């Protein structure tokens, strides 16, 4: 099963199993990762599931769509080249394990 490592702002790591096909956002919400707020439920109307993908994993991910790219302008914590909206990151066996860093604020 795919493992997602969430790194909290303080450095604490939380490793959870992801259901195949679920988004990183849904995986976080299902596992009580409070740093992922996901106010819009994953339809690209907010930026409150913002994560920083670990640099080692970044290039394995499909690039953000135009809609995700636009909404990333509305993150609460500063946007960096590693910024993604976790509702748009689907976990699959092919993608494998993933490490994402959680921002200190979502709004």
């Amino acid at each position, binding site marked *: 099963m795919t493992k997602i490592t969430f790194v909290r702002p303080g450095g604490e790591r939380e490793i959870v199993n992801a259901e195949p096909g679920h988004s990183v956002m849904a995986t976080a919400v299902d596992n009580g990762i*409070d740093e992922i707020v996901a106010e819009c*439920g994953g339809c690209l109307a907010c930026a409150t599931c913002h994560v920083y993908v670990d640099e080692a994993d970044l290039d394995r991910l499909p690039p953000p769509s135009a809609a995700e790219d636009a909404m990333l*302008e*509305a993150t*609460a914590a500063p946007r960096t080249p590693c910024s993604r909206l976790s509702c748009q990151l689907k976990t699959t066996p092919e993608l494998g394990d993933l490490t994402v860093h959680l921002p200190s604020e979502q709004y």
Partner: protein
Amino acid sequence: MSSTEATATPPETDFDHHAPHLSVSHDEVLATYAGLRERCPVVHSSAHDGFYATTGYQAVRTVTGDAEHFSTAEGVILPTQDLPKIVPLEFEGPEHDAWRTIMLAPMTPAKVRELQPVIDEIVRAQIDGFARDGRADLTAALAETVPALVISRMVGLSAEAAPRMRELGSEMVAAVNTDRMPQAAKEFFAFTAAQLEDRRRNPRDDYLTQLASGALGDRPLTDGEVGGILMSFFIGGHHSTTAAISALLHHIITENGVREALANDPGVLPKVIEESLRLSTPLAHFARTVLQDTEIEGCPVPAGSRILLNYVSANRDERRFADPDRFDLARRPNPHVAFGFGGHLCIGRHLARAEMTAVATQLLTRLPDIETDGEVRFSGLIGGNLHRILEFPVRFTPENPNARQNRTADGK
């Protein structure tokens, strides 16, 4: 959701959010909603040519999160009003997204942070207006004035011009559904057109200048469309934020332990704000239209029917929130739907939270012994949608004007 409800015809009721008895008593509204929640997640009403009404939490999430089956494009007010479409709310698809991008631009978290000193200054000036009096009505003197001034400054008006826009915007919102509306809208649109003309002649670094030269897709925005954007800011953000600010202050002042918790740790304020939004959700109802036959929580709803969402009832649903009528500072997570959910999530929510934060922080710092002074009057459902505090009398030790000079610039 299929585990809780078998397919069942929604029970027939005579629920009408415009019923006169609901317009006078907040308690009666809450009791009515609680009664509906006991019956089914969705009920049918014979009022207004027939509509379905959600009663529970999950039904709101299901409908607002599913744009394939439920649309805002036929109007979010029930019964349908003869008004121009509210942007971006009453659009769907790419057209909605284009409007939302334009309208979200001045209200992203980053933009709200930039605006914070202006918000702080507006709040400070409003508190200055009554801090030495020992008594005030917090709705009239604070909650009602801040949101419209913030909207006006946010779009780029000067401190001198903002009160005029507040006046025109407030009058227009008050005139909805009255015969004053055409005149109020005309004056508001004339004011905004003059501001746009000024920005075309003297461009500056503000949102009005962006709108004056802005585009929707591949064509320029008309003055009328820009007026519609600004009108939507007032319709969406004026009374709702006023209601949210009053309610927050009321919870802080009257709930056991909240003020003490804030004094011990100001970092608790975000939790207080979210719990206040959950328990005192300003806007109760927006509608959707069913695009194709489907089910909500096991209740079949046919294509073409109208659905009235109930955000207030959702936020008090005992199946989602333990002990839902209690103000609980430890509630975590607190996934209330006061700002809606899904693609039409309120775009002004960051701004609203920033205003609530500024008002609560400054008021408690400057007037720490503030308490209610007589009866606080709550509205019923205003216009079949809004809950607010009408009168909020308070008393406090008057602020010493000499002490004021020692305050730091941000009121802390």
